């Protein structure tokens, strides 16, 4: 499969955003400005993580649920409610932050699972080759062919929508994608001299995997994971459209958009605000992933 692009190997939903390697161009800038393409999105992500995970701990943010109906539809810039309240009285700023927390938690969990489980599967498959490889790859092919959305729907229908179940459902998308990538990366490594040397020296397989393969494929997997986070957040929102995802009254950007678009004509900010946050977050992760990938290719 060496003739194919590594993104082709990735397949699956996560590949929707897999960005092609940007051709490395020597930067004319000096010093830290050379790293602006990593610093800016990195800082943005840092800010978002801070706002969503840290700020509510000691900042004065009211709870995102349990709002009093008498507080409904308070306009933006009101005292105590910088962005106003929604139609049942919950503070909108709070819902954006906590919603972000939920969305990001799901996204991280799904991609970590994908990276670990998928990465292992793919590396195994490539490492052992022949029969094991074929079997694992065929199973993954089945999963990729299967309209994963249906799988996700089936899971939510039977188990009931919840954060955990959403994570399971979305992991069905991410594991095969990571597996394919890990496999392609590992295949590339197989023929390298240091691998041959290790094998000749009699190093046992698990050791090879751990000490040689893993560190070498990690960068590609992590970069892929960063891009995957953006995809996953968007997918969680899609699941909310179809009745899955995080169940109300708990917020997630996805279900806020879904609830908001049902009253778009009356209260556009209920859609615009979470959409804006969603966009900026996904953009930041994409930019970061893209920048890291460019570096990875240059080396």
């Amino acid at each position, binding site marked *: *499969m*060496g*003739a*194919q*692009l590594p*993104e*082709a190997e990735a*397949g*699956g*939903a996560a*590949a*929707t*955003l897999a*960005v*092609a*390697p*940007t*051709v490395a*161009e020597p930067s004319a800038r000096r010093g830290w400005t050379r790293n602006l393409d990593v610093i800016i999105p990195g800082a943005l992500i840092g800010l978002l993580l801070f706002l969503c995970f840290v700020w509510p701990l000691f900042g004065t943010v009211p709870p995102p649920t349990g709002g009093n109906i008498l507080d409904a539809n308070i306009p933006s810039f009101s005292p105590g409610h910088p962005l106003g309240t929604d139609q049942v009285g919950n503070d909108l700023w709070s819902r954006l932050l906590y919603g972000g927390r939920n969305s990001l938690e799901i996204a991280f969990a799904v991609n970590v699972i994908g990276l670990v489980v998928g990465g292992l599967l793919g590396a195994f498959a490539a490492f052992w080759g022949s029969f094991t490889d*074929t079997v694992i790859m*065929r*199973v993954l*092919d*089945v*999963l*990729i*062919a*299967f*309209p*994963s*959305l*249906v*799988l996700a*729907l*089936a899971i939510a*229908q*039977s188990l009931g929508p919840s954060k955990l179940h959403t994570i399971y459902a979305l992991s069905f998308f991410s594991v095969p994608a990571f597996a394919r990538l890990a496999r392609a990366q590992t*295949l590339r490594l197989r023929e390298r001299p240091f691998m041959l040397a290790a094998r000749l020296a009699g190093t046992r397989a698990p050791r090879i995997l751990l000490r040689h393969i893993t560190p070498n494929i990690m960068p590609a997997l992590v970069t892929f994971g960063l891009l995957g986070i*953006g995809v996953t957040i*968007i997918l969680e*929102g*899609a699941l909310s*459209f*179809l009745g899955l995802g995080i169940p109300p009254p708990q917020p997630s950007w996805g279900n806020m*958009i879904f609830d908001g*678009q049902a009253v*778009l004509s009356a209260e556009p900010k209920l*859609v615009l605000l979470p*959409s804006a946050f*969603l*966009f900026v977050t*996904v*953009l930041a992760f*994409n*930019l970061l992933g*893209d920048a890291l990938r460019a570096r990875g290719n240059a080396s």
Partner: protein
Amino acid sequence: MTDQAVRPGPALALRSPALRLIGNRLATAVPVLWGVTFLTFAVIQLLPGDAAQQLLGINATQEQLREFRDKLNLDDSFLVRYFHWLGDVLTGNLGNSLASDQPVTSIISDGLPTTLELLLYALVISLALTVPIALLAARNPGGFVDRVGMVTSMAGLSVANYVLAVVLVYVFAVKLGWLPAIYTNNTGTLGELVKSLTLPALSIGFPLFCFYTRLLRADVLEQMQGEDYVVTAKAKGVGPWRVLVRHALPNSLFGLLTIVALNLGTLIGATVIIEQIFAVPGIGHSLLEAINNRDVPVVEGIVLVLAVIVVVANLLADVLYAVLDPRIRYGRSAS
């Protein structure tokens, strides 16, 4: 490697390595197809909730429930039911909807063409935009088109397609009135169809375009800078556009088409959501309806058909790639 001065264009010369590869691919597709049928059946059947009670409702007597279960062989073991179902499927019988009693095949044949039309339209939009922009960008890396293109595509990738749909409807249908807000098919003309599907296709196609552009651009650039034949062509005085279009592009397009096929599963997922938003009577809509109603035969039928389409598309892409990729054709290591 040196026997090709100029890389030949895509000719369909079948050589035995290619044939072998095709045979290989076909052979592996079969177990995948089987796995897909099994997974489909397993997932749906394992949904909790008694379909019989649900569909017959609260007034159903024990007698009626029993009769219903018999009709669906619900009391047989899982494997027996699976093989029974598989046998039916292979003879083209997908059963009848539990809710409306209509044959599943007719439900699918009603909705599938519309969904495929939507998908095709989205792909056409995305590819029609991708090719010229990617080429322009690759022609002058770092130039204006390249920079603007990359920024736009990065932004476009970061937008959720359902958010885009909501915005598109608001701007183009409600405010400007240029395009319909929901799918209509009153006159059955092509013009009306195209108008109805434009906003939905854009919602799907624009993020796709962003994705494909970056891929195509990168691949073309890689070829322009890396491949021997390009260097040779330039040395011979062949113009850069000619090299781009006649040589780099076709090869890169294959890579792109492979990705299109690989992404089909996700694309179908996107279609399901977009169909809901625009009330398009496609197969995604029918699927959601059926899942909601626990209409097991319909869900199984639609999922199976969709999965088979994806497997076949991937197979075709693989085969096409194998046949047309000169590197494989000329026997270079393929894995």
